[in-house]
């Protein structure tokens, strides 16, 4: 009897602790989402009268629209380039032995430890060199973002490559598949979840990126997070919360769909080879 009581108590405490952690993790989203529906022009919590007006305002605000489109452009290019470059490097590191392999790997993963503002500042300095003619172009923003998101693509593809059973490639070759056919019919389908996962993370990170973007974007190229920052310096109304809400909802939808079709553990490339 005493043991049962103790176990019940233990279960209750565990549940309470877990619940508290979960609440802690979702509370930013909940607060922002609730604030987004606030009728008043102040960032108050909880909202008095629910309303969509800040969504309307945010969507119609010129700087946000431009920021959104700019963000899409930058994200599409940056994640695309990172996917190609990251996959190439991951393949080289996995398949070939060469001098300086370790150094290359460290170098490619280094953006994980270098602060974003360092990268941003570096490209700002480079861009200000008149000879390079980089100043405040999309090219500059894309290049900066590629560096920042590359490690995520690299990791994701590399893990998938490590999990790929090489004898499957040999089996295909023994059945008459040329190296190109092995790549197209065997490797790519088997690596697809890893490639997609890496690309998806790169895209989400790039679209969200603020610190480095602040350094390298100009009026014409500013991305949504930068536009939001500019806005919040002058105004403090719930349209920011409205954008955040849209952001959270769309990202969640993408992840849910991806999970449905590929399985999150495969996207995160944490699934081992059975």
């Amino acid at each position, binding site marked *: 009897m005493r043991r049962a009581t103790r176990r019940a108590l233990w279960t209750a405490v565990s549940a309470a602790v877990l619940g508290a952690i979960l609440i802690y993790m979702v509370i930013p989203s909940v607060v922002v989402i609730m604030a987004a529906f606030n009728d008043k022009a102040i960032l108050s919590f909880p909202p008095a009268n629910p309303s969509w007006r800040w969504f309307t305002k945010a969507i119609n605000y010129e700087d946000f629209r431009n920021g959104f489109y700019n963000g899409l452009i930058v994200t599409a290019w940056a994640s695309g380039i990172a996917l190609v470059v990251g996959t190439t490097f991951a393949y080289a590191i996995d398949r070939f032995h060469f001098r300086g392999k370790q150094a290359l790997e460290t170098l490619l993963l280094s953006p994980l430890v270098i602060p974003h503002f360092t990268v941003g500042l570096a490209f700002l300095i480079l861009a200000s060199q008149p000879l390079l003619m980089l100043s405040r172009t999309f090219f500059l923003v894309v290049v900066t973002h590629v560096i920042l998101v590359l490690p995520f693509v690299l990791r994701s593809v590399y893990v998938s490559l490590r999990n790929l*059973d090489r*004898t*499957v490639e*040999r*089996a*295909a*070759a*023994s*059945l*008459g*598949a*040329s*190296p190109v*056919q092995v790549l197209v*019919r*065997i490797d790519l*389908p*088997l690596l697809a979840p890893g490639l997609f996962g890496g690309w998806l993370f790169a895209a989400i990170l790039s679209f969200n990126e603020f610190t480095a973007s602040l350094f390298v974007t100009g009026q014409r190229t500013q991305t949504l997070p930068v536009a939001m920052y500019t806005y919040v310096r002058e105004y403090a109304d719930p349209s920011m919360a409205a954008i955040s809400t849209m952001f959270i909802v769309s990202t969640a939808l993408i992840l849910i769909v991806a999970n449905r079709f590929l399985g999150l553990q495969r996207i995160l490339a944490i699934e081992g080879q*059975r």
Partner: protein
Amino acid sequence: MNRMAPQSETTLMTEDTAVRLDGVTKRFGSVVAVADTWLKVRRGEFLTLLGPSGCGKTTLLNLIAGFLEPDTGELFIHEQRVTDTPPHRRSIGMVFQNYALFPHMDVADNVAFGLKMRKTPRDEIRQRVSAALDIVRLGGLGDRRPRQLSGGQQQRVALARALVINPQVLLLDEPLSALDKNLRAEMQVELKQIHQRVGITTVFVTHDQGEALSLSDRIAVMSSGIIQQISPPNEVYRYPANSFVASFIGDINRVPGRVATRDALTVQVEIAGGRRVSVVADRNAALRDGQDVALFIRPECLSLAGGADENIVAIGTIQAHVYQGTHVDVHLSSPDIGPLHIRAPRFDVIERWPIGSVVNVAADLSEALVFAD
């Protein structure tokens, strides 16, 4: 020394040869994985490459498959030189230890893969895939995914996938080693039947001598990159070419000794403990008088002798009886020779000679072998 080309092979008509290795060598760094190997695999033959791990058998198979290129020597499949032909242009079918099925394709697509690569018409693909699945008794499972199948079923899919393309050679890389014991025995029988039905030249790699003895037309016993002997199973078992083969195939007792005298017919060997035994000479031609040798005797050629027996070779103390169902393995310790292993066909040995009893060991030396030590 490793030029395994006895008379019967050199007279082979070339069109009977499915695979030919002419002086093939493969090194990995300073390690010689396959050393100057000359080998002919006959058409329709089931040849097994048998040896301990690291003996070079898998390297040899990968050389035939084309996954590795030889450092020296030439390789022919159906008398076409393929030394530097990549695997996808060789006509081979291969079954891997871990099956290596394509996880993103169903069973039928796995089997159809090789035919698609050969641009076979669709209707023909469908027919041949279903015929191949029938051969391995998997008809009706074409729409399953590999992960939905048991190990034995996956093995059959891999076999069907390799057979459906009608390769000139079927290469099997330890295909049964991942299966549990009962399934392995079942698949052995099935593999043998399929080979007989299809009649395809098969090169089979294994470290399991039981598999090799039961499946093969010929066994090539390998160690340290060298084919030590290539013979039919009963010859490998009864007439091993050297002490490595004798020790590797089956259980055997090794008795140290020295050549006392020899004549045209027999070799007299003085074995440890001072007894003299006489062994048939024809297989032991190269021995000199006074040479240190080892006598190899199978456990089934030894018996426990009660009283006086002229074939007595040793005295020993019984250490253990191991009841094996069809026979009893008796383990003795002899002060002169060391451990001895006797296979007794009758179970009464357990009562007649309990553990600890001192007994005479008699030997039937008609099949004993002597090799230089």
